[in-house]
């Protein structure tokens, strides 16, 4: 692959405590998302909702590689994991999904629109590819101010075909914006397989015409992801230039909670084959092999996190819905539009 940074894998140097933390984070996201699916089926969550099940290693690898709260992070609508890993209160996140007053956006955003700028998280966006220039704008701001922040700009493989990506890549390179375009390639634009939506399925090449350092890496192994992410984040921070990374992954769940028949676009055999790459199972194997945690301990962690997610859900579900009088709040900072039907 041209333009790829030399990819000699250094030995994994994380401490046992760090490895356990990655594991806990991934299992927590998995259970949080599974609970979301249950809540959706029960009618507790509405609208569109997209879970990160199967892709946990990707977000963990990247979000442990930045300065949390200082660097900027933006993504599309599959956004729960990013917010949670940046430190957004999980009860407020779940409450937002349930449309409650105490949600991150007071019930005005929902699953696709989590925001937490204090943690560096700028959404949470629903138009495929639409947020890509916004992310470059965050990077523009840090460059304008002479800061050495890095922006992680996550997008999906479907968004890699949107015109605004190419416009943004051109300007990001032209103006040397410290923005990492991370294509989470889970192989499907909703229900349309990569081969049917991209003339060239090597999406990492999208950065090449603009002179942007670009590469494809695997996103199903948390430790590899973590190392590659750190290498790229460090390079961008140091060089203050953009970077494009295609991260290969696979979502085990449907596109969204309303995607009830995955067999329309992929076979069960294919899913089972990909589930052998389950990032949680892979990290479990490492933890056992290195005698960091045994099977019993892993099970205990799993049970503990299931319990934690249940408590989060219960706390969120105990919250009231927004008062209808709040409907006009925060359309503007200082006024309301013409009122009434």
């Amino acid at each position: 692959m041209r333009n790829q940074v030399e990819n000699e894998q250094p030995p994994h140097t994380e401490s046992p405590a760090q490895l356990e933390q990655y594991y806990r984070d991934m299992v927590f996201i998995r259970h949080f998302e599974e609970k979301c699916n249950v809540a959706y089926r029960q009618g507790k969550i509405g609208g569109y909702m997209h879970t990160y099940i199967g892709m946990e290693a990707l977000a963990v690898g990247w979000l442990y590689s930045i300065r949390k709260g200082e660097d900027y992070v933006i993504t599309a609508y599959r956004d729960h994991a990013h917010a949670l890993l940046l430190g957004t209160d999980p009860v407020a996140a779940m409450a937002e999904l349930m449309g409650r007053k105490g949600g991150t956006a007071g019930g005005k955003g929902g699953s696709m629109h989590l925001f937490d700028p204090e943690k560096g998280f700028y959404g949470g966006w629903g138009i495929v590819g639409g947020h890509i220039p916004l992310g470059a704008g965050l990077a523009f701001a840090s460059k304008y101010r002479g800061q050495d922040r890095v922006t992680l700009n996550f997008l999906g493989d479907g968004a890699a075909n949107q015109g605004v990506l190419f416009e943004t890549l051109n300007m990001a390179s032209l103006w040397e914006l410290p923005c990492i375009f991370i294509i989470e390639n889970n192989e499907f634009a909703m229900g349309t397989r990569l081969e049917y939506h991209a003339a060239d399925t090597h999406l990492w090449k999208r950065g090449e015409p603009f002179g942007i350092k670009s590469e494809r890496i695997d996103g199903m192994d948390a430790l590899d992801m973590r190392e590659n992410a750190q290498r790229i984040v460090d390079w961008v921070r140091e060089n203050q230039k953009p970077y494009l990374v295609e991260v290969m992954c696979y979502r085990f769940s449907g596109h969204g909670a309303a995607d009830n028949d995955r067999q329309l676009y992929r076979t069960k055999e294919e899913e089972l084959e990909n589930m052998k790459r389950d990032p949680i199972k892979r990290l479990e194997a490492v933890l056992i092999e290195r005698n960091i945690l045994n099977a019993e301990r892993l099970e205990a962690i799993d049970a503990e996190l299931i319990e934690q997610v249940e408590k989060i859900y219960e706390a969120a579900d105990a919250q009231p819905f927004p008062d209808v009088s709040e409907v006009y709040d925060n359309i503007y900072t200082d006024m309301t539009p013409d009122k009434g039907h």
Partner: protein
Amino acid sequence: MLSELREINHSTMASTLEMTFREALHKSMIEEMDKNADIFLMGEDIGRYEGTFKVTRGLFPKYGHRRVIDTPITEAGFAGIATGAAMAGLRPIVEFMTMSFSILALDQIINHTAKIHYMSNGVVKCPIVFRGPGGAAKQLSAQHSHSMEGWYAHVPGLKVVCPATPEDAYGMLKTALADENPVVFYENPGLYAIKGTVPDDPNFSVPFGKAQIIKPGKDISLVGYSRMTHVNLAAAELLAKDGIDAEVVDVRSLVPLDTETIYASVRKTHRAIVVYEDWRSGGFGAEIAARIGEDCFDHLDAPVGRVGGLNVPMPYARVLELECIPDENDVVAAVRKLG
């Protein structure tokens, strides 16, 4: 008629300067950029080329490429980048070469810029100004003559202002640059060369949401904004010859809209005609007319009249173009029709 634009001087300040609408915008931007290092300009050919309508002349040499940024011709991309920068606390001024080109950026402006504050329940602010020429210039035909202000005024989350005079251009741009919300700042290209007085006071500003009675009258209210305010003044002069004393209301700001000043005028004159350059069907003038009808019904002696642009893609031939754009004769005819 573009050549017959009226000079409107409503400043009460002792010390004033005479300048064009274009110079007023230019002066306003320079004064605010000097005060606030977070303000920067972004747009097509605004730097080295000095802007298509020369509003940004001299800014590139003064501030350099860091703060006066020539963009590629990618409206959606740079509108989005500027929006992201505003989310991070900067104060971008995005110039569209014409508002007709902002159509390429509608997804960014409507789906993103306008929604950030609400979708985040007030956690993220987006202080950004989109400005540029909107409406018909001269023989630019169908793709370069759009009046987009009504499209933007339709969207909750955006403020939309349409000044008619150099003083308002100067003062309202200052207000826009202090606002914490996205502002669409509309400049009719027919206004750039008009002259007027501007207060010699760098702290002067004109608040949003304040309509103004440009010419008092007792018989009928002519309600308009931007260049149509000048058309209404010309119509008022013609009407005066027939003994009709028209009041001219300059709306100035569509969102927020100062309905009180408009209603007070209508309650006085008992007749109203709303004049707008945009296509007659579904334009913002229709909204103003509907509100007058709803809220001033008991005070009206006649239905609210409307004069809008013809519902036609703007044609090239000057004679056809002029037929599409409302002028004072159209307004006078509408007044007569009202009876």
